[in-house]
């Protein structure tokens, strides 16, 4: 039996001003399979997906869906062909309910009246969530949800179209292992119903857990495809980055010094209670926990984004009042936030401006900006973190997600922090860059600085941390030294089941 | 003139004071403010007998109607209105008449003036006529005249312009070459005049619908070094304008007796509230102000 393709894309080229995002690429997806599309940040994966869903129009090339050549002028056309997509950039409508978000454009109506049947909509959402094993109240507004739950809603939404082809562009970037496992269960189930999936991720292990075929892009070019069985991990990574890459974590030993930061009984009612921990020079402190554990809330409070109800913070033994991020930065702290779009990027500003914003004082001569210095430093950072952008005056919103993340990291590195707090630092970052960031963390630790890393990727937590703090529902449930910790233990404390024995 | 009998007034409210509500078309209008002074002065001259409420209609006819309705529900003994628009007075006239509250229009004559309402003021068109007749004399019956209009939808602006046009029509040697709005504003009058002078077209006289625009025009003319070569006339005889007549820069303005109109209206209101009869039309004529007689208006 000849292979039956649900999607065949050939000779696709897409240009943006100053960039060739896709250069004559191809992608063929077999019916009823999960097809991994792999590549570094900026390889053009999302751009290609957007041409399928009708957001971008390719400059050249053909798309065949179910064997027929198709034109996809807009998303509506894609949806009616039977293609839906989980977008890399989450797109919640904050003031509408979860159910309204999911059924936008497909609202059930009462008879033929044109009136929306709100109750039915909620019932439909509940039914969908039941089927997918999701515990979210469809009546709450999207803005109430954490970023993780927002992503889950988007997953559910894409699936609810009952499409024949579902594109998942980094669907697991904001969720933890538990939800990933659930998603994989759903995907297997979809496969049974002959649904095909294009799966984009930067988490290598996921590829081999769930995907049948792999296609690799590099710099907007098609490199090759094979089945997951045939294509080994090392080989795939080599295709992605164009060279050999060592996959082990770049944890280098650093000398552990004095206590740099100490947090005592930090509490914010309704979010977290009595959180205490210490951070020493040379240390990388990992924070583990399931989504909703309150890790983000703790460090945002620590950084002065929100106000603590009670609790104390000591920097180098001195008690400090941190009322705003301004204060935190004065105390040589830095925070890479979890939500890139909401609290990270200045989307309409250039890469350069985005980089210098947290520490402009470093770039002034008296009253005026030293533009030459800014340019030099930014170019240096661009090279150091291998940020893919045609020039540093490019608007950050035109960068791929992973490259945006790198720009934000360099923003905080430029402040020369003593305590660098990273909330999901490698979210959406490709393997190569991830290794770079890990190296960087080690280097900072060796310089006698300290790093707090929140990560929902357990291997990353285990691989990089000197110590791990585990949180569950707003409370610290455990703290472990590097040598004592295992994946199972973290999960036990993160789910709160450690008390059950 | 014909007299109107006040319809069923009780001669004042409970505390013995006469309550008068006044809705003025626009508090930004300098002339109307002088008229308000006239009303105030007359009311004060009666001691504590009259209690006056002034409201600003902001040049919006519906707002004025709202205000008159509010006056009626407040139980005013008489209402004075400087109408925003004389063709939009029918509903307020009808409401006031139905309630038996005397309504006095000032300054602008409504088309519809039913029994029970009164008018105090002058004929707007006369201002344009007086102004242009004097300019025609200065021009020796030939030359190009430009008209600076007030706000385009404003009645005083239209009537005064009509007056100018009427006079020009009688003088074949005079031609209106440009008609444009400067929205009653000195600054816009100046800008407009600058632009006109730039255009290089010959201008011999400027007929401005009010003094502020005329003063703006004079400033542009002076800056261009053409003072004395272009005649300028305004309307209102504001103190600023009189000073310019005195300085020999403004050739003429038309005196509208703000004090007389305001005081006359208040007098009529008090009389009607007391149940005394007054003439339905009380005319207070315009007067031309020139270098010969400006002293009388200082």
């Amino acid at each position, binding site marked *: 039996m000849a292979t039956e393709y649900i999607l065949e894309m050939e000779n696709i080229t897409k240009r943006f001003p100053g960039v060739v995002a896709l250069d004559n690429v191809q992608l063929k997806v077999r019916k009823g399979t999960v097809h991994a599309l792999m590549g570094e940040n900026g390889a053009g994966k999302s751009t290609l997906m957007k041409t399928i869903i009708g957001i971008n129009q390719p400059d050249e090339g053909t798309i065949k869906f179910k064997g027929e050549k198709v034109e996809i002028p807009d998303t509506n056309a894609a949806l009616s062909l039977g293609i839906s997509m989980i977008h890399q950039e989450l797109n919640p409508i904050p003031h509408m309910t979860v159910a309204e978000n999911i059924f936008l454009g497909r609202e059930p109506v009462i008879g033929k009246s044109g009136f929306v049947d709100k109750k039915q909509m909620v019932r439909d959402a509940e039914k969908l969530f039941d089927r997918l094993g999701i515990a979210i109240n469809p009546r709450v507004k999207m803005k109430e949800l954490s970023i993780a739950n927002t992503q889950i809603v988007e997953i559910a939404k894409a699936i609810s179209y009952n499409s024949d082809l579902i594109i998942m562009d980094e669907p697991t970037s904001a969720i933890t292992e538990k939800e990933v496992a659930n998603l994989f269960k759903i995907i297997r189930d979809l496969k049974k119903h002959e649904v095909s999936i294009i799966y984009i991720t930067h988490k290598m292990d996921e590829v081999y857990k769930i995907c049948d075929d792999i296609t690799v892009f590099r710099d907007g070019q098609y490199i090759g495809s094979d089945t997951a069985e045939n294509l080994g991990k090392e080989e795939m990574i080599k295709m992605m980055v164009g060279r050999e890459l060592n996959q082990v974590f770049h944890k280098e030993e650093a000398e552990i010094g004095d206590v740099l930061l100490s947090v005592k009984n930090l509490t914010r009612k309704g979010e977290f209670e009595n959180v205490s921990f210490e951070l020493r020079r040379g240390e990388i402190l990992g924070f583990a926990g399931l989504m909703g554990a309150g890790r983000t809330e703790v460090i945002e409070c620590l950084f002065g984004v929100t106000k603590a109800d009670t609790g104390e913070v000591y920097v180098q033994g001195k008690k400090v009042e941190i009322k705003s991020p301004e204060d935190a930065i004065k105390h040589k702290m830095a925070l890479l936030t979890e939500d890139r779009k909401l609290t990270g990027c200045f989307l309409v500003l250039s890469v350069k401006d985005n980089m210098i914003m947290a520490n402009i004082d470093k770039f002034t001569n008296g009253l005026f900006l030293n533009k030459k210095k800014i340019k030099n430093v930014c170019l240096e950072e661009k090279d150091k973190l291998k940020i893919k952008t045609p020039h540093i005056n490019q608007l950050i919103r035109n960068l791929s997600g992973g490259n945006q993340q790198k720009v934000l990291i360099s923003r905080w590195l430029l402040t020369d922090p003593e305590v660098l707090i990273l909330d999901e630092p490698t979210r959406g970052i490709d393997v190569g860059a991830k290794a770079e960031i890990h190296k960087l963390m080690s280097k900072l630790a060796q310089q006698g600085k300290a790093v707090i890393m929140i990560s929902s990727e357990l291997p990353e937590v285990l691989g990089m941390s000197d110590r791990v703090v585990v949180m569950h529902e707003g409370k610290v449930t455990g703290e472990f030294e590097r040598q004592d910790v295992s994946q199972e233990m973290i999960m036990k404390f993160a789910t709160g089941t450690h008390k059950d024995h | 003139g014909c007299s109107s009998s006040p319809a069923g007034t009780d001669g004042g409210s409970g505390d013995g004071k006469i309550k008068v509500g006044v809705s003025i078309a626009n*508090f930004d209008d300098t002339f109307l403010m002088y008229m308000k002074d006239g009303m105030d002065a007359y009311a004060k001259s009666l001691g504590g007998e009259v209690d006056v409420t002034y409201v600003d209609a902001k040049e919006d006819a519906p707002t004025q109607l709202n205000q008159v*309705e509010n006056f009626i529900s407040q139980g005013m003994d008489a209402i004075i209105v400087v109408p925003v628009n004389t063709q939009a007075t029918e509903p307020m006239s009808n409401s006031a008449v139905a309630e038996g509250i005397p309504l006095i229009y000032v300054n602008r004559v409504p088309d519809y003036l039913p029994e029970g309402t009164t008018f105090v003021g002058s004929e707007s068109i006369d201002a344009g006529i007086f102004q242009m007749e004097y300019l025609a004399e200065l021009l020796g019956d030939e030359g190009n005249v430009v008209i600076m209009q007030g706000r*385009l939808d404003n009645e005083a602006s239209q009537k005064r312009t009509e007056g100018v046009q009427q006079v020009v029509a009688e003088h074949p040697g005079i031609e209106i070459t440009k008609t444009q709005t400067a929205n009653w504003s000195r600054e816009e009058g100046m800008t407009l005049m600058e632009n006109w002078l730039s255009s290089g077209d010959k201008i011999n006289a400027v007929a401005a619908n009010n003094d502020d625009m005329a003063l703006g025009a004079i400033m542009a003319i002076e800056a261009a070094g053409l003072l004395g070569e272009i005649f300028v006339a305004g309307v209102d005889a504001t103190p600023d304008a009189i000073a310019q007549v005195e300085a020999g820069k403004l050739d003429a303005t038309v005196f509208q007796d703000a004090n007389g109109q305001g005081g006359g209206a208040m007098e009529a209101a008090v009389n009607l509230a007391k149940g005394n009869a007054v003439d339905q039309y009380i005319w207070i004529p315009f007067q031309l102000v020139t270098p010969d007689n400006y002293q009388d208006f200082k």
Partner: protein
Amino acid sequence: MKNESEKKVVTMSKDYKELTKDIFKKYGIVIIFLGMVALLSVLSPAFLQTRNLLNVVRQISVIGLVAMGVTMVIITTGIDLSSGSVIALSAVVAASLAQRPDWAAAKFPGLTGLPVIVPIMAGLAVGTIAGCINGTVIAKTKIPPFIATLGMMTVARGVALLYADGRPISSLTESYNFIGQGEVLGIPFPIILLAIMALAMHTLLNNTKFGRYVYAIGGNEQAAVVSGLNVSKYKILIYTIAGFLSGMAGIVLSARISSGQPGLGLGYELDAIASAVIGGTSLSGGIGTIPGTIVGALIIGVLNNGLDLLNVSAYWQQIVKGLIIVGAVILDERKNRS
């Protein structure tokens, strides 16, 4: 699962504690409005008389109509500066077809004494067309609504002046005047019209697909696009409805003063926008309700009426009015409207 339910309980108990706070949060502006009413009824005995209250509502009916359309536009992160001018244009066009046959200076001497439906349809059509042009320009050329409707504001005013030659079009038929001055069972007709339209608009926004799309486009236009909504189409429709309501306001206004004037409605756009924002509509989109907007319009109306009743002098009125509007919005806790 156990954890889930535990957490819910926690949330619930918190809810009860904060109930009063929540009520103020949700109905803050209504409470502020009621406070104003209470204060005014103490300060001025005339205020609470039925007649005066009917006055207030009748007076806001025009702003109310416009503000409802503006609310919808603002929910989509747009703005409509043209409403005041569209009022004028629709008023002069409608009035020119509603003149009494006995009037010598009729604009169209051959077209007097027409059935009242003719001027009504003409006025509504004018508003609808203007709105449709706004919407089309905004949706198709992607220029900011501020500029598109600013252009329409200038153009529509110019056309109104040109059409009426700057002069009022007066002496309108009784049946036309009824729209602005008539009463049904003692209730002024403009109030009835406002109530009907408010109900219709509220239903439209709350219970129909179209309404959901208005909020979706305002909440996150990109999300609306990727959900397959034809955003352009809906934007055109939204501005068209706003134009329709401005057209209707023009008819009511001209019927109320028995005269169509090219200077009508000047500055009404700001009052309409202020009503919407005071009523809780967010200028950054996605939030806003019709009842809120009506309360916003009532606050402005009560303020105008009350200050007149209290005999506050004209200059002070402006000052007090400005302060109270700002104060009301500050007191109102729903802050995310900018």
